[in-house]
């Protein structure tokens, strides 16, 4: 959709928010793997592969998988954020393939936070 006008910009904003919003009957979970330089160096790619593998095996269709940059805590990478419909996002730290598989089975599939890998719940302050 080349050459936007100001109105198009607003439309894209609404459409995309809609697309990314978790809802009943739509996407139920969003998993973001943080892939800044330090995340990648710490092994974020393997974590991502494990996640995609689990999703493939489970045939799950209601999960948004996203990559994003630095999560701010380089000493605790690899990190991922799991957001389940109607719950606050949870940040996981020091991940590896095995932990990601466990998080998939328990948090993503059943909504139960994996306490031993979770650092914090909620969103960062940004006003």
């Amino acid at each position, binding site marked *: 959709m080349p050459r936007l006008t100001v109105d198009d910009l607003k439309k894209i904003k609404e459409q995309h928010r809609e697309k990314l919003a978790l809802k009943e009957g739509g996407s139920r979970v969003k998993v973001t793997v943080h892939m800044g*330089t330090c995340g990648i160096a710490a092994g974020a790619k393997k974590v991502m592969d494990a996640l995609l593998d689990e999703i493939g095996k489970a045939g799950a269709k209601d999960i948004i998988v996203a990559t994003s940059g630095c999560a*701010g805590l380089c000493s605790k990478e690899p990190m991922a954020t799991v957001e389940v419909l109607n719950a606050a996002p949870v940040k996981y730290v020091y991940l590896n393939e095995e932990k990601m598989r466990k998080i998939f089975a328990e948090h993503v599939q059943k909504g139960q*936070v994996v306490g031993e890998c979770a650092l914090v719940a*909620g*969103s960062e*302050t*940004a*006003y």
Partner: protein
Amino acid sequence: MDTFRTSVMVCGGTGCVAGGTLKIKKALDEELRRKGLEKEINVLLTGCLGFCAQGPVIAVHPDEIFYQRLTAEDIPVIVEDHFVKGRPVERLVCKEPAREQTVPLMKDIPFYNLQVLRALRNKGMIDAENIDEYIARDGYQAAAKALTEMTSAQIVDEMKRSGLRGRGGAGFPTGLKWEFCAKVKDDQKYILCNGDEGDPGAFMDRSIMEADPHVVLEGMLIGAKAIGASKGYIYVRAEYPLAVHRLQLAIDQAKEYGLLGENILGTGFNLDIEIYQGAGAFVCGEETALMRSLEGKRGMPRPRPPFPAVKGLWDKPTVLNNVETYANIPPIILNGADWYRSLGTEKSSGTKVFALSGAISNIGLIEVPMGIPLRKIIYEIGGGVPNKRKFKAVQLGGPSGGCIPEHLLDTPVTYEDIMQTGAIVGSGGMVVMNDLNCMVSVAKFFLEFTAEESCGKCPPCRIGTTVMLDILTNITEGRGKAGDIELLQDMAQDIISTSLCGLGQTAPNPVLTTIRYFRDEYESHINEGWCRTGVCKDLCTFYIDEEKCKACGACKRVCPQDAVSGEKKVPHRIDQARCIQCRSCYEVCKFDSVKIGPRSMRELLKGLPGQDALRDRQIRTLAGKEE
């Protein structure tokens, strides 16, 4: 102080802010004023309340009622029913607090609850390679506003009122810089972005370019409109391939959407942006050198005036700003200067990003309101110094900055206050040092860097830094002489006052601040031949206090030289002929039994036989000095 009967906490977490927190806060303030309740009910922004999925959320205290999924239209009802009549609005109350049982909330963890993300507001939130995600979080709305609703003068005015100061190091007011350039008449002007980030230990700009590349483009677009530029360059170091890749993708996508190129958003405004990959010389981050380098010439600073705002790239009026500076601009245009000033201090407004590293538990990228004391950053956000070691100093501003000691940790982080300590806020590198750091070696490390990076144009910088480095090397290798400290201080003043560019003008800072605060370390190196931290290998002797030794064997296992002897229940001992002063034994001993003595002790220990009582006494006499 006013006493309020009720406080309303408006959630300022990213989840709620995306849903319209600021509009709700505004509506609340207005409605309360209309009803004359502003003295009774206090409205505050707060960190995430843990109901992000139900956002925007507000919490009312002391009633402990949470309202969810609010819009500005709900506010009059809440004010009337709840605050006037005392009846909570049931239909808006949060029913099921979807709390995570075991996991703490961000507001309960200092690493998160002391931070406010403005420049980093999209950190970890969006896919950097998808422009739609940036747009979904209000991306390019500020540019649209600047291009369609604001004149150049209005943009400049908003920037000036915001008080934003350049985040690249010097802290020059951005609005003022733009105003100078806007006033110059020329048919060609340039807008540049400094993504050189040469400061060792800094990665703020890399992280922004990688995680949120469009914010840089949008900031430049607003700047271009303000000064009337039609061409822009982003200067990025070639060592940042992921940043270059994502910026290029962002430029391509923005072009495709008509957000760069010609007739942007149908407004008739044109701007092209290109990436230029720098070869990584530190001096190329200096503005005039960066411009020469962009022209394809050797990156060397030139005298100012003429200032780049008048004669910059190819002698055309040019504005150069730092990556983080640009990241602050879209929200200022969108939310206004007063919003920006709501954090920080009078002269240092807003927030600053820091890269925390070194001897600190939480290594990472943080953004804090300016004015926060260093102590809070280090002990609360950073989680303090790990491994039971002691804090010694925090280094701010990299090779241009200085080391701030423990007793000044209550200094608020503002441009003025940090300058008072002899350091600078700088671009945001913050390296914490513990008691294992030798401050003379730290000063030497930074000076090695600047001496190496000096472009060589002015003799005081080129020769002066080398001579100072030689003196420091002598001191750390045991050839220090009386008078060296004074000589270093004298030379430093000369270099500062006679160098052409910021590199030379600031290069002595690490030396001056370490002399100012850790003079005793210099003196003990020079006068006693003793580096008490055991960093300078020629100035220390590792030995074991045999009365304290618990014979645990840890030092023996870790020694790469097999220099430690001893068995169970027998105090261990170091063979000086074998020891290479690697300090491993010292760091590993849990009982504080490995000691570091002066250089002179080594010979003394070498010749003497076994468990000789005389030797032990000598050790203790020498060690007594250490306590």
